């Protein structure tokens, strides 16, 4: 079979009995075996448990038992989501070899939906980065161009989907960590509304910003996966007490009359002109499909990055305090407990993680709280207000996903320059709203461009409708083997 098939088609074929889950899983594992040495999307490929799970799906279908909507569909899971009995590392030496005694809620829901986890994907260490280069276990290569990064932090998940290792992947997005790699790899990536998907079992980077979300080759597949993982979870106190939204059935409702606003602040300085051109083309496509399109100013968006780089690290500095060598993970021996903790943390964390812990500790420390963390929380209020104002006049907003297309591995050494990758994405996390990146054309070098559709909290159904329209209008990307260029 072809690994290019969509999750929806695979699921339908397996349910109809036309294809076995084992056969599908074997095909994807074979593709992984062939290309993974080049791409390095995974920290661990779970072939054995994947085949066992697939055999169980086949047995259930043969026995006429009901199966879930993702029955037999291979999925790659980001390695900061806890999997019981399977190592979960956050791509950090700190957690190398750590076997969680429990499953993340989203992992439980995947299993309940019948999805087959084929492996745990590489990421920037503790999800801190925009290139997957901060992984302690080596960089992931962009399947579109092996000299380039896949983006990050969910670089392994985006690469796995782009390389057809699995039609679906789970990523996590704190400031753009699903959308930016999706854009870089030419796949679809969704940052759901904060609270729509449970964070229980997601190893926290920044608790008030983190969300788990889908990566897929098609908008419809992303919607299918989001339906399977969304919905209230009593184990996460920030989970919205609502059932998962119905998304797939509304995908083809069209965009006639949809009010679309292009965010002025994200269409100028610092954004690659090729990308701006594609966003304008995308807007025209939506207009052609019946939407009304206007520019709209969302002034506080321009402060999103600054506020994000205070709030995110502040929460991270506290979340990562538990990595101390006492109960799990790395320990570096020393004569006293305090020295042991210092030695462990110094050896276990990479530079980017240390940088953010330091930044966050500083932002929270005595005498600086009001100036940094306190002020950033107020900026957050401004961002929420400005988005709310814009959403009074518009159903969805449009912007680039990234300021540039995928850059070359090793080309950005300066942290601040790296942080600028998140220019277009952080504001959504600050506001707790939802956004999707849809592949839309390429730059002059042929690298994929992502167009971002933003919607208010719980506006996923509308967002997906617009995304489907964009997908339909998008210039075709070349398909085929990884590094097909």
């Amino acid at each position, binding site marked *: 079979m072809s690994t290019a098939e969509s999750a929806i088609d695979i699921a339908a074929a397996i349910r109809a009995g036309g294809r076995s889950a084992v056969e599908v899983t074997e095909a994807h594992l074979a593709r992984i075996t062939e290309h993974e040495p080049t791409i390095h999307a995974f920290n661990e490929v779970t072939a054995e448990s994947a085949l066992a799970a697939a055999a169980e799906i086949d047995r259930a279908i043969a026995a006429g038992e009901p199966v879930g909507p993702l029955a037999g569909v291979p999925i790659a899971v980001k390695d900061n989501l806890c999997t019981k009995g399977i190592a979960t590392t956050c791509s950090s030496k700190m957690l190398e070899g750590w076997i969680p005694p429990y499953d993340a809620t989203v992992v439980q829901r995947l299993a309940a939906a019948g999805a087959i986890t084929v492996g745990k994907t590489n990421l920037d260490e503790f999800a801190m980065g925009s290139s997957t280069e901060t992984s302690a276990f080596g960089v992931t290569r962009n399947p579109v161009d092996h000299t380039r990064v896949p983006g990050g932090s969910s670089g392994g998940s985006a690469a796995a989907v782009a390389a057809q290792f699995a039609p679906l992947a789970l990523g996590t997005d704190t400031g753009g960590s699903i959308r930016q790699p999706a854009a870089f790899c030419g796949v679809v990536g969704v940052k759901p509304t904060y609270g729509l998907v449970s964070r229980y079992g997601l190893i926290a980077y920044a608790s008030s910003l983190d969300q788990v979300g889908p990566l897929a080759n098609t908008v419809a597949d992303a919607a299918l996966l989001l339906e399977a993982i969304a919905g209230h979870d009593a184990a996460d106190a920030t989970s919205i007490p609502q059932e998962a939204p119905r998304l797939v059935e509304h995908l083809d409702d069209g965009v006639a009359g949809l009010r679309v606003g292009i965010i002025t602040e994200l269409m100028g300085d610092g954004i690659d002109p090729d990308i701006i051109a594609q966003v304008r083309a995308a807007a025209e496509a939506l207009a052609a499909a019946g939407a009304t399109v206007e520019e709209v100013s969302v002034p506080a968006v321009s402060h999103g990055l600054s506020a994000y780089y205070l709030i995110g690290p502040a929460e991270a500095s506290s979340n990562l305090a538990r990595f101390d060598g006492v109960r799990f993970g790395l320990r570096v021996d020393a004569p006293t407990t305090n020295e042991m903790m210092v030695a462990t943390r110094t050896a276990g964390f990479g530079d980017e993680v240390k940088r953010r812990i330091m930044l966050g500790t*500083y932002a929270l420390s005595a005498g600086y709280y009001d100036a940094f963390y306190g002020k950033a929380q*107020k900026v957050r209020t401004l961002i929420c207000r400005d988005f709310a104002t814009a959403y009074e006049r518009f159903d969805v907003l449009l912007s680039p996903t990234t300021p540039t297309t995928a850059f070359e591995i090793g080309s950005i050494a300066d942290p601040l320059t790296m942080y600028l990758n998140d220019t277009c994405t952080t504001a959504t996390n600050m506001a707790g709203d939802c956004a999707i990146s849809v592949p839309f054309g390429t730059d002059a070098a042929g690298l994929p461009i992502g167009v971002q559709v933003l919607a208010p909290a719980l506006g996923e159904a509308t967002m997906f409708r617009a995304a489907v329209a964009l997908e339909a209008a998008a210039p075709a990307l070349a398909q085929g083997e990884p590094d097909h260029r």
Partner: protein
Amino acid sequence: MSARITGDDVAHVAKLALLDLDAAQVEIFTGQLAAILEHAKDVEALDLDDVPPTSHPYPLVNVLRADEVGPTLTNAEALASAPQAEDGRFRVPTILGEAP
């Protein structure tokens, strides 16, 4: 907002965060953190006195659970990942000083 972050600040923060940095690293981090905070200066210029802070993007209250026992780990499961254990407990080197 504040004076530029200094090497002393960085050394102090490293100590709070239990990270051991040598002098060269302190210097590198000081420069990088200063640049990041400098970029955040746009926030500094905003007049936010009357703006309330937002700590949760989605405003929920009173999310409570019933006082009912859930699944627990066995002692073996609890200690399975411990770097060192003894007598059913997590073993650590000498502790200097009582908890604050």
